[in-house]
């Protein structure tokens, strides 16, 4: 969280400047109810839409309840000031707190649910809130709504006037947008994007996937409530139908139209969808139908929204960024080479129903060695790796890592202790640049540079240097070839200075040249003394690098020892080539 606060505060001068410009613009706005109302609506909506950018754009979690959080903010301010005589900002603070708590609770739903389930949870929440607002008349004033919501004073400065209150809304909007913009480049922001792009890889890169989602929901709900609270003050009257499911859809559309990846997109989308229909009043009758059709057209033709379109143009012209090139010690291994057991599994088992995919396997990986795990297809190698890294829960047995029992830890906790891995079917964060991918590896909690943003950057660059990929640092990882994506995955693991690197079939899908390069890379890693557990089919590669081989077949260990001995072992030969026919005498 340190990384978050330092990066956010660094944006303070810009924020101040932007706020002053916002106040100036607010003062320039024509002092007429009509224009002021439109601008107040746009700015307060925009704050809520930025909330959607965080939860949907950054973290990839669908929430169709933003109007509900907007409503909690609005009703909190209205009930607090009108019924309880609270100060505007105190009421707002309480409302934002309540909304944040509801956001966190909604986020808890993401523990086991994703996609449409989560959409349904948020819709349910939205519907229930609308019913409560309409029917709990003693508290919410029911369908009639609440009138005469007062505007506040701010350090003795009256915000009663339309322009003054608009200034408050615009300043809040600008600050919220800048916050979200800075957030994207922080550790937390990168974690959210990693969760969005690939939650399994995020977990095995040390990111608490569930916690990150919950925080994203919380932030989104807080921003929704800030927008709603200001909205209540701006208009002085609220009623339940302003915060219905339909409004949630409107907010979602604003985010998507503008571009859900950026708060600037949110601002553009909101302004457009509020101001445009006002200028196109002759369309009023068919406006919403056009609106619905526009949503489909946006999804088809502008998948990343208007800002996505602009951003893409900008990035294409900004490819060649020169980076500082410090040479850094990437691999600093400590501990007793050759004797200390980094990883030790004892009687490890994983059963799927009646299928014993891993059936009582025991062996140890010693520090500084390259240990290969081989076996025919279906022998349980991948399952084994998934159990060791925590993606599967072990049915029985014990896993010790650096002398500690990690059998029941979650994947990100294991990674934070120094256990890194790559995947057979490459798992990179496709919506991010090569450099950002590797930075996520470098800033895993437990790494020496984890909480120093500047050092995270240099460590990531060093890792990219090691795999000879620095030239591609600012490219989107999805643009790279399969082989290069594999290097990004390896660099991501290396940047976290792991004690043990698990490579799950790294040669899979590579062509001959790439396989040779991979072999050389592994030899260099071995030269640095990194402990590696490699699973692969490519015997040539395994023979080149392995100090020790363990062979699995049908989930059981059938051989374990030095490469020469193991590869001549009759059981191993039988497993790979089939049993010799017994001659009939």
């Amino acid at each position, binding site marked *: 969280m340190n990384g978050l606060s330092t990066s956010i505060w660094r944006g303070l001068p810009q924020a101040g400047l932007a706020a002053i410009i916002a106040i100036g613009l607010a003062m320039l706005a024509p002092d007429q109810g009509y224009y002021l109302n439109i601008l107040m609506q746009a700015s307060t909506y925009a704050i809520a839409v930025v909330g959607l950018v965080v939860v949907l754009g950054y973290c990839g979690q669908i929430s169709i309840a933003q109007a509900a959080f907007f409503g909690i903010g609005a009703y909190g301010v209205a009930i607090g000031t009108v019924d309880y005589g609270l100060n505007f900002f105190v009421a707002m603070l309480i409302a934002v707190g309540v909304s944040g708590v509801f956001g966190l609770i909604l986020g808890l739903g993401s523990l086991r649910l994703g996609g449409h389930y989560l*959409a349904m949870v948020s819709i349910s929440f939205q519907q229930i809130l609308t019913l409560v607002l309409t029917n709990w008349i003693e508290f919410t004033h029911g369908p009639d709504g609440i009138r005469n919501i007062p505007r506040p004073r701010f350090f003795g400065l009256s915000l009663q006037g339309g322009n003054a209150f608009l200034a408050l809304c615009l300043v809040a909007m600008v600050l919220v947008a800048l916050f979200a913009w800075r957030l994207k480049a922080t550790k937390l922001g990168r974690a959210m994007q990693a969760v969005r792009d690939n939650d399994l890889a995020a977990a095995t890169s040390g990111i608490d996937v569930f916690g990150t989602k919950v925080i994203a929901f919380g932030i989104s709900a807080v921003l929704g409530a800030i927008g709603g609270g200001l909205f209540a003050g701006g208009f002085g009257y609220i009623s339940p139908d302003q915060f219905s499911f339909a409004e949630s859809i409107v907010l979602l559309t604003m985010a998507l139209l503008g571009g859900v990846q950026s708060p600037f997109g949110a601002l553009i989308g909101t302004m457009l969808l509020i101001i445009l229909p006002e200028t196109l009043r002759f369309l009023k009758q068919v406006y919403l139908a056009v609106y*619905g059709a526009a949503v489909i057209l946006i999804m088809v033709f502008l998948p990343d929204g208007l800002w996505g379109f602009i951003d893409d143009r900008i990035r294409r012209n900004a490819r060649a960024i020169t980076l500082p090139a410090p040479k850094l010690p990437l691999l600093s291994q400590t501990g007793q080479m050759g004797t200390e057991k980094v990883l030790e599994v004892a009687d490890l088992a994983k059963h799927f129903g009646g299928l014993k995919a891993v059936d009582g396997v025991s062996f140890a990986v010693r520090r500084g060695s390259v240990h290969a795990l081989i076996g025919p297809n279906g022998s349980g190698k991948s399952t084994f790796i998934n159990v060791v890294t925590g993606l599967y829960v072990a049915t029985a047995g014990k896993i010790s890592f650096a002398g500690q029992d990690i059998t029941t830890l979650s994947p990100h906790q294991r990674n934070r202790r120094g256990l890194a891995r790559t995947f057979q079917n490459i798992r990179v964060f496709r919506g991010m640049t090569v450099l950002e991918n590797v930075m996520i590896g470098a800033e895993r909690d437990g790494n020496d540079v984890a909480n120093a943003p500047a050092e995270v950057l240099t460590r990531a660059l060093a890792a990219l240097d090691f795999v000879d990929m620095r030239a591609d640092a600012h490219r989107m990882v999805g643009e790279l070839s399969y082989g290069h994506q594999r290097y990004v995955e390896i660099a991501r693991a290396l940047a976290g200075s792991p004690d043990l690197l698990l490579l799950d079939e790294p040669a899979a899908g590579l062509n001959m040249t790439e396989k040779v390069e991979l072999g050389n890379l592994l030899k260099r890693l071995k030269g640095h003394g990194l402990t590696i557990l490699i699973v692969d089919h490519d015997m040539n590669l395994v023979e080149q690098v392995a100090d020790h081989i363990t062979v699995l077949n049908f989930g059981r260990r059938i051989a374990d020892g030095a490469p020469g001995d193991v590869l001549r072992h009759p059981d191993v030969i039988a497993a790979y080539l089939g049993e010799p026919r017994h001659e009939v005498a």
Partner: protein
Amino acid sequence: MSNFLQLLFNGLGIGAIYALVSLGFVLLIRAASVVNFGQGEFSMLGAYLLVVFFNIFGINYYVSMALSIVIMAGFGVIFAYTTYWPLRFRGGLPVIISTIGASIFLENLVLVLYGPSSVQIDGLFDADGIQIGDVFLATQYLSIIVIATILVVLQYLVFEKTLLGKKLQATSQDKEMASLLGIPVVFMILITFAYSSAMGGLAGMLVAPLLFVSVNMAGIIALKAFAANIIGGYGSIPGAILGGLALGVIETMGASYISVPYKDAFAFAMLLLFLMVRPQGLFGEKISEKA
């Protein structure tokens, strides 16, 4: 007790509607992995077509229904081509949002064409219903239950006993493999959209005499039908039916015994409860991603 039986009957009637709409959801989920947030608008359109043919053109009620169903099937194909087809390779979320867009579009198109006033329409039969003891079986509810049952049985027979059904199942399970086996996958998906739209439209026509026909008559029904689908087990056909019936009964009972204003909340509260306790639903299977 008689009150309970009466509520049970009414609950099953409205539950049968949820089940029908929910089936439409499930078929699309299975065939094309599409979560269609425009499913409710299928029902709304079906009801409006019936209004146009019967109330305005004065065509015979049953002929009007048949005509509407045929048009809805055609509409399903158009819906597939505009809302699903261009986005079919881009994953779940873009399609969900595009169907939300379609739902806004359709609702407001009808609003522009027809205006906001709601319309009353006759039921399937003139008779009001049958009195058995203290329980009154309203004709429309009875018809809904009977038609829903027939449709479910028919659908089961088509899916399990015909070659077309097997092809549809194959398409839903593995599109690539199905296409390698020479099954026209695109055609199968279009059939599913057509059927889903026609069935949604029929559900709208059946529920129309009970609710009045209005632009937003079906939005809440569709949401509850989707809730029923998750309660029953995402993508499960028996789950959709049982989930729908259960939801109808619980909501009717809840409104009567607990609170009328919060009638609509019971479905969503039950959904949240299920999602927390048993997210795979009654008939669903746990799915875990392979690393």
